[in-house]
């Protein structure tokens, strides 16, 4: 990727975030004049940036939006929810393009159709503003067209009627050549006036009447006929039957089956795959509008974790025109993007700190050179000892500082995650008809980039739950004497070496009694221990796998993807999650996260003459078990530890190394825990514990299974730190 594109992506993403925030503020009616100016500038700058990387389609889309915003700025147009939606939709499309650019390194070549859709939204709005309503299609020529070709008309596109001026040929015009310039023509009809015969036709006078249907946008038809003398009439075709070949139909049916499949495992992946196939089918058939609609739906469904609307939309396409019309149309989309920050912005003061440290390290290095020279010159080493010690202490301090400074470089403010939420909360709460006041606090709290980046999904899940389950509907709230708009606070703060992120709502709280009932019903815990547990302990059960108390299944949640996924995600980055609830007053879910994931505690062990590391947080204990107590089960082995049977693998064997020949009487076993399961790993020798800076695998080794990363040992050897979970898979 060239530097221009890299810089462009970075800036464009920032501008999109800023514009999104401005749009949301504008909708709330905050600081109008300044916000509009800032918004306009953001769109304008984005357009300029698109020009620099020669991304014409993006420039075109932004230009259309900018024109409309300029009317808002000149106060010739009001800010309407539709306008905000259209602008947000435009930014969404640009984000999608940026995602593509991030993978390919250059502007996508197939962006024109999507740009047309956006331009149309803004331009059509401008046309419609004249009479305030969309034009109706009761024209005679269109009726005739429909009668003759009804079945062949595409679901989306335009029908056009062109009657050239009689003297059009004299002006050097060729109307059919104009028509040939309309992209994606489906059919053409030509007609001469009744009674035209060869005998009296004037070859230089145009009497032809042209009717055509195209899948392209209204604007591309306009463009093709621009300046052509004559009368052009365009009717936009809306939802009609989607014509698909038989094999493509069955392909779509297969996607519905896939989406209908039960089971939470790999659900989102299945959804994404099925959606992608559907979009590809539609794009292949030239049904770009329908494809864009499915793409928008897919994203919403991925966020909601529920495929119902997607299934309905695909089904209705197969069913025909009526169904398509009833399919929910979503102009705005909710996006989940796994941000891949190729480039990081670092505060220059942090770089300066590193530069200063380098200076100090150089001084210390020179001191060692001086000491070495002294020894060489025959000075008694004992006399130098004190000096040497002093330098070593200084070096120690500098290395410590260096480590901390380097860690700080990888630190990002949580704003990067938080700023995506206001928009999402708006989408989610609107979709279920709840009113939510959303506040973020402590966005400037910092954490390691890895943590910040992996926080989005668990937080989204929690916030979604708070909106859907936590907050009551406005009527219930009023009855309880609360303001009708629920309040949700997303808050972050630093606490010693931890970062605390909380989601607090003022909703109904968690029904402890109901959790006790459900836990008893599902035999999650023995009844005796349930009754001994305090309310607070009971509430924590909402994080248990497969636990969902919601009696109603809404489109948003309650379909089996529980808070256990949040717990798993948070634990993956070394954090913990807890909940605090007061019935009728609300609940607060707290994530306690490590500030950094760079320093890892590892335990080493030896197998086949090599040293390997295990992340200490996966190691439960070590054990020595007599070999005679190891039992063969199927192809594997197992041993019993305190009445539990634990599967056992031999490290050397599972890594494909030649096993050790040492015939010890007892097997040395590292007992590990991953994803809640215990497993034993037999090693030759147990090693020591140490703090290491774990370096993730990169390049070709990036996807290597079973390895979490590497670090250097004191003697210069490479320590491979193993990923226990992958070893057992």
């Amino acid at each position, binding site marked *: 990727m060239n530097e221009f594109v890299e810089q462009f992506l970075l800036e464009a993403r920032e501008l999109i975030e800023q514009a999104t925030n401005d749009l949301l503020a504008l909708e709330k009616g905050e600081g109008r004049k300044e916000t509009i100016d800032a918004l306009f500038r953001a769109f304008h700058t984005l357009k300029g940036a698109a020009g620099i990387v020669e991304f014409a389609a993006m420039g075109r889309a932004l230009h259309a939006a900018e024109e409309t915003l300029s009317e808002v700025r000149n106060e010739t147009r009001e800010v309407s929810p539709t306008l905000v939606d259209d602008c947000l939709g435009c930014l969404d499309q640009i984000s999608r393009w940026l995602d593509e650019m991030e993978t390919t390194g250059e502007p996508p070549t197939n962006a024109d159709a999507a740009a047309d859709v956006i331009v149309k939204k803004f331009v059509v709005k401008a046309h419609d503003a004249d009479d305030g309503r969309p034009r109706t299609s009761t*024209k005679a020529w269109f009726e005739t067209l429909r009668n003759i070709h009804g079945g062949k008309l595409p679901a989306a596109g335009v029908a056009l009627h062109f009657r050239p001026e009689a003297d059009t040929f004299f002006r050097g*015009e060729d109307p059919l050549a104009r028509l040939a310039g309309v992209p994606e023509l489906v059919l053409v*009809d030509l007609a001469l006036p009744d009674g035209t015969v060869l005998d009296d036709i004037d070859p230089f006078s145009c009497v*032809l009447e042209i009717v055509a249907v195209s899948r392209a946008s209204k604007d591309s038809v306009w463009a093709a006929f621009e300046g052509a003398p004559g009368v052009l009439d365009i009717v936009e075709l809306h939802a009609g039957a989607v014509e698909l070949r038989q094999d493509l139909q069955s392909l779509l049916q297969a996607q519905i089956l896939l989406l209908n499949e039960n089971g939470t495992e790999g659900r989102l992946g299945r959804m994404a795959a099925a959606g992608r196939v559907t979009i590809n089918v539609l794009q292949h058939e030239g049904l770009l509008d329908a494809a864009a609609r499915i793409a928008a739906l897919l994203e919403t469904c991925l966020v909601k974790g529920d495929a119902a609307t997607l299934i309905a939309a695909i089904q209705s396409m197969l069913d025909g025109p009526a169904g398509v019309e009833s399919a929910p149309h979503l102009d705005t989309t909710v996006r989940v993007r796994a941000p891949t920050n190729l480039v990081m912005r670092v505060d220059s003061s942090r770089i300066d700190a590193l530069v200063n440290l380098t200076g100090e390290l150089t001084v210390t290095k020179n001191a060692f050179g001086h000491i070495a020279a002294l020894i060489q010159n025959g000075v008694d080493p004992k006399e130098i000892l004190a000096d040497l010690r002093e330098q070593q202490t200084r070096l120690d301090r500098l290395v410590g500082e260096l480590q901390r400074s380097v860690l700080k470089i990888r630190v990002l403010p949580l704003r990067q995650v938080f700023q995506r939420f206001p928009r999402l909360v708006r989408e989610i709460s609107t979709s279920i008809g709840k009113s939510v006041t959303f506040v973020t606090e402590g966005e400037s709290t910092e954490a390691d980039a890895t943590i910040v980046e992996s926080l989005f999904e668990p937080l989204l899940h929690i916030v979604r739950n708070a909106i859907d389950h936590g907050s009551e509907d406005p009527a219930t709230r009023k009855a309880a004497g609360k303001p009708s708009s629920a309040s949700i606070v997303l808050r972050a703060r630093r606490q010693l070496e931890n970062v605390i992120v909380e989601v607090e709502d003022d909703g109904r709280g968690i029904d402890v009694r109901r959790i006790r009932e459900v836990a008893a019903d599902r035999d999650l815990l023995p009844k005796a221990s349930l009754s001994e547990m305090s309310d607070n302990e009971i509430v924590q059960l909402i994080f248990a796998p497969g636990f969902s108390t919601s009696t109603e299944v809404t489109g948003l949640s309650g379909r089996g993807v529980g808070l256990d996924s949040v717990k798993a995600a948070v634990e993956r980055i070394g954090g913990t999650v807890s909940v605090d609830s007061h019935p009728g007053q609300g609940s607060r879910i707290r994530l306690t996260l490590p500030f950094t994931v760079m320093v890892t505690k590892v335990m080493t062990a030896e197998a086949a003459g090599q040293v390997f590391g295990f992340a200490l947080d996966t190691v439960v204990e070590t054990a020595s078990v007599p070999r005679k107590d190891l039992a063969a089960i199927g192809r594997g082995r197992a041993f019993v530890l305190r009445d539990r049977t634990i599967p056992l693998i031999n490290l050397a064997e599972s890594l494909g190394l030649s096993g050790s020949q040492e015939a010890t009487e007892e097997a040395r076993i590292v007992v590990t825990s991953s994803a809640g399961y215990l497993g034993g790993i037999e090693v030759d020798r147990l090693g020591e514990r140490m703090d290491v800076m774990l370096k993730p695998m990169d390049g070709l080794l990036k996807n290597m299974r079973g390895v979490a990363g590497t670090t250097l040992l004191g003697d210069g050897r490479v320590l491979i730190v193993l990923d226990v979970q992958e070893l057992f898979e």
Partner: protein
Amino acid sequence: MTIKLGDIGEVLLIGDCSVEDADVLIQRLLEDPSVAVDWTKCTNAHTAIIQVLMAAGRLPEGVPKNSFLEAMVGPALRRDQEVNSAFPKQPRGAKEPNDTIAITKGPARQE
């Protein structure tokens, strides 16, 4: 000249048939109303040419060397011939619906 007579007296449309060729085509068709028209070698046909073919009720033979003519204009001519499915002809000078959008008469654009 891109309107020629073929070996068996058929009218051949060859290459880029311009507006000037329309007059020649009319003459040929008037001379022999039953003459065959072949557009196999036609790379482009001006609207004037198509207009004449329609007035003569002729469907050219062969496949033209232009995908727009082949895929769009050809079928349109065929439909025009088939009495029942033909797009109804408008009486000359029919009134336009009021809500059509008129294109400004700009300077002619050379294609």
